[in-house]
């Protein structure tokens, strides 16, 4: 039966003075008691012998922690991950980070302390406390001052407490019972309602995000930025007299940054061209990056001719052999620009500087690995296979 679960004995008082006296009195004898007042009564903490709240330490530590994290994040994104010079400021522009650091301190300090207070200190949300819906609760939420001592207190004695409260001037004293089932109720993760609700929400959000990203953004007017009126090459134009959309550069001009390649044979290239770059560390790094991107699929990571193309195309030759060591830089340049046999030219993909850097890098590889012993066909095939596995 419900009646058997006694939670506490409670007393209601009419004035703040009387509740102060009661709290002062009760707190000397009992530990598990609490005072409920419609507003914080001044001086009650002392009457109840409570220590002052130390929540401020949490606020300041969490705020400063998140601030340092934000500072690190700004440093990392602006100086390490994607360094960019903005307004002539250094990559790590500390003074310019101060406003955001300040805001983050306040934001996290406030939000996380409130969240901590509510969930850890108050153990909220909790709408199943025995006090809820009792007449006691209804009185203290409006105009009465209440105090209760839990039945679990070691000194608990109903009749003695009743007398004590009466003596202190309580206007009413009453027991508070609780319903075990309600108080002990624990949320169940596998509750069908909860599971169906969660799945429903998941489906709904996925659906709406899908619709947004794949349909809505391609609808009028959202797609107007993608479909702007413009002249595409190959289209006819009514605007220009010659009827073409595509414009041709005026005779005798060269587009900015573009220098036409004038050599039509490897021999003339090797005769008239020299490498204008110096094989500095920076230049070799560039060469390595570009070589690995554009050349290594066919020529191997070390230019050793280990193709990763699994026989879909013949592998490129080993570029370290004496034959290629004797190539002039100009000849290499011509091959990269125009291609050779089934190897395509890279004129439109690799800039001039990068082409020279690649050549410097190949030279370095040649020096580092020396001239290889010429291998048999099988050996090469085997080698390229193991390389394939390793690179995967």
């Amino acid at each position, binding site marked *: 039966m419900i009646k058997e679960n006694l939670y506490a004995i409670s007393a209601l008082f009419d*004035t*703040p003075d009387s509740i*102060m006296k009661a*709290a*002062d009195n009760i707190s000397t004898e009992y530990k598990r008691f609490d*005072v*409920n*007042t*419609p*507003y*914080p*009564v*001044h*001086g*009650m*903490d002392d*009457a109840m012998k*409570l220590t002052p*709240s130390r*929540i*401020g330490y949490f*606020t300041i530590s969490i705020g400063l922690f998140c601030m340092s994290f934000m500072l690190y994040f700004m440093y990392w*994104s*602006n100086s390490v991950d994607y360094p*960019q010079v*903005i*307004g002539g*400021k250094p990559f790590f*522009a500390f003074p*310019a*980070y101060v*406003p*955001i650091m*300040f*805001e*983050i301190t*306040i*934001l996290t*300090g*406030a*939000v996380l302390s*409130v969240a901590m*207070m*509510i969930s850890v200190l*108050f153990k909220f*949300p*909790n*709408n199943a*406390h025995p*006090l*809820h819906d009792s007449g006691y*609760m*209804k009185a*203290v*939420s*409006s*105009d009465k001052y209440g105090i209760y001592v839990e039945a679990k207190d070691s000194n608990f004695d109903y009749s003695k407490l009743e007398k004590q409260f009466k003596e202190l001037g309580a206007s009413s004293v009453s027991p508070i019972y609780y319903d075990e089932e309600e108080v002990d109720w624990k949320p169940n993760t596998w509750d069908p309602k909860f599971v169906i609700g969660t799945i429903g929400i998941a489906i709904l959000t996925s659906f709406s995000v899908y619709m947004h990203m794949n349909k*809505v*953004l391609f609808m009028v007017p959202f797609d107007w*930025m993608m479909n702007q009126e413009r002249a595409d090459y190959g289209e006819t134009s009514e605007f220009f007299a010659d009827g073409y959309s595509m414009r041709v550069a005026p005779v005798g001009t060269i587009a900015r940054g573009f220098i036409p390649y004038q050599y039509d044979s490897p021999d003339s290239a090797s005769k008239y061209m020299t490498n204008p770059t110096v094989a500095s560390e920076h230049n070799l790094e560039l060469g390595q990056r570009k070589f690995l991107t554009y050349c290594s699929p066919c020529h191997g990571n070390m230019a050793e001719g280990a193709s990763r193309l699994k026989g879909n195309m013949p592998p490129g030759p080993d570029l370290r052999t004496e034959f290629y060591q004797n190539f002039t830089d100009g000849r290499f340049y011509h091959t990269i620009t125009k291609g050779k046999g089934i190897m395509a030219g890279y004129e439109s993909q690799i800039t001039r500087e990068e082409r020279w850097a690649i050549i410097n890098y190949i030279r370095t590889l040649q020096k580092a690995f020396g001239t290889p012993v010429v291998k048999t066909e099988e050996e090469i095939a085997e080698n390229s296979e193991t390389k394939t596995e390793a690179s995967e």
Partner: protein
Amino acid sequence: MHTETKDYDNDLRIARPIVEGKRTLKQIDDAIIAPLDRLPNIKFWIAISFTLTLLMVGAIALGLSFYYGTGLWGNNNPVGWALPIVNFVFWVGIGHAGTLISAILFLLRQRWRNGIARFAEAMTIFAVITALIFPIIHTGRPWVAAVYLLPYPNQHSLWVNFTSPLLWDVFAVSTYFTVSFVFWYVGLIPDFAVLRDRATGKIKKLLYSVFSLGWRFSNRHWKHYEMMYLILAGMATPLVLSVHTIVSFDFAVSILPGWHTTIFPPYFVAGAIFSGFAMVQNSLVIIRKIFDMEDLIPISTLELMNKIILLTGMMVGYAYTMEFFIAWYSGNQPETFAFVNRAFGPYAWAYWIMFSCNVFIPQLFWFKKVRRNLFLMFIIAVFVNVGMWFERFVITVTSLSRDFLPSSWAYYTPTITDFAILIGSFGLFFTLVLIFVRVLPAIAIAEIKAVTEQGQPSHTHLHIGNGKSNEAH
């Protein structure tokens, strides 16, 4: 302390009107919750239809702007930052009064604030919501605006520019919104519990239980709660100062003459409080009429607000004149030109509207009769709002329309769409305010109870009670 002074007129620590009405704590509940319990009156319906009409006007203007593009606005080259930024700065400023009342006056132990703090905080939140619309629509593609504003890992490996005042703005305004909201909600928790325990309907009771989180008025909770409230007030105070400071950096960090001035941060903050108080005063005058709350929000509170309007108005006036002095004293030609151009150039009309509304008209508040006359104070506050809107207009538009190169000068005129969006923003703000007063207690119940005369313990019989930090003794 509690025995001799019963002079309510001078004792601002006590929320007078409620005491004057000799209400018991229970009657305080009833009085504050009354607008929630009864069906709204005809005045409410008239008011909300009016504000909803304004909102519709704005919504249509926005819809058209999204459909046809921002070409419908008057923004031109060089005035690219036109009404959207003006409205943004204006609305963020409005929000500042709310935090000032709820946080700064709390720390200064001004008890008269208790009656209007909740309302002012709500206004902060609504003003910031309204303000946030403008930078987002200003991107022209609001449905992807988050992509431009927030640092998130993306396939271009690009991060937002942390050194830009515009990004500081994103952080400042969103922090301001979040913290104000948390502050407001924390204040509401005990009031939700009051509503929960009074509720009769099942759905009402469920909703209030959920929002009250199960608050039990336990003193073991009040202890942390009060400390948290104090901390939040302590954090909101520098926050509110930082927000308009950072908003002013949008201008001050640039190198445009008329914008590049160090006086901007304090000047913007003072202006924000000035216009914010005018707006709070305006809304309070309307709200107390509509919801019959004349005795909950007394004239004396409004009078005190008028004094703050007078004070901040003079600070703003000082800033206006100081700008001129500095422009002359700097000996910098473009700077001098910018200010002479402001006062006597093509936008002189806007400048003098601003100057008279902000500096001359509030001087009427020197007279006690004016400060306590509802009609006059309302009109003056409207003028202040107009003036402050024009201040942002003058700062933004005059400097942009005539910068260093005369060949790039151009005159800017807002279009009808621009104004429709501005009108819509007022509609949104006041609709939210009306709904708020209708569905939530507009006055903090627990806070009011704590400052009533019968709510104070007398401390004669116990040697307790030194230094609860928020109690004025």
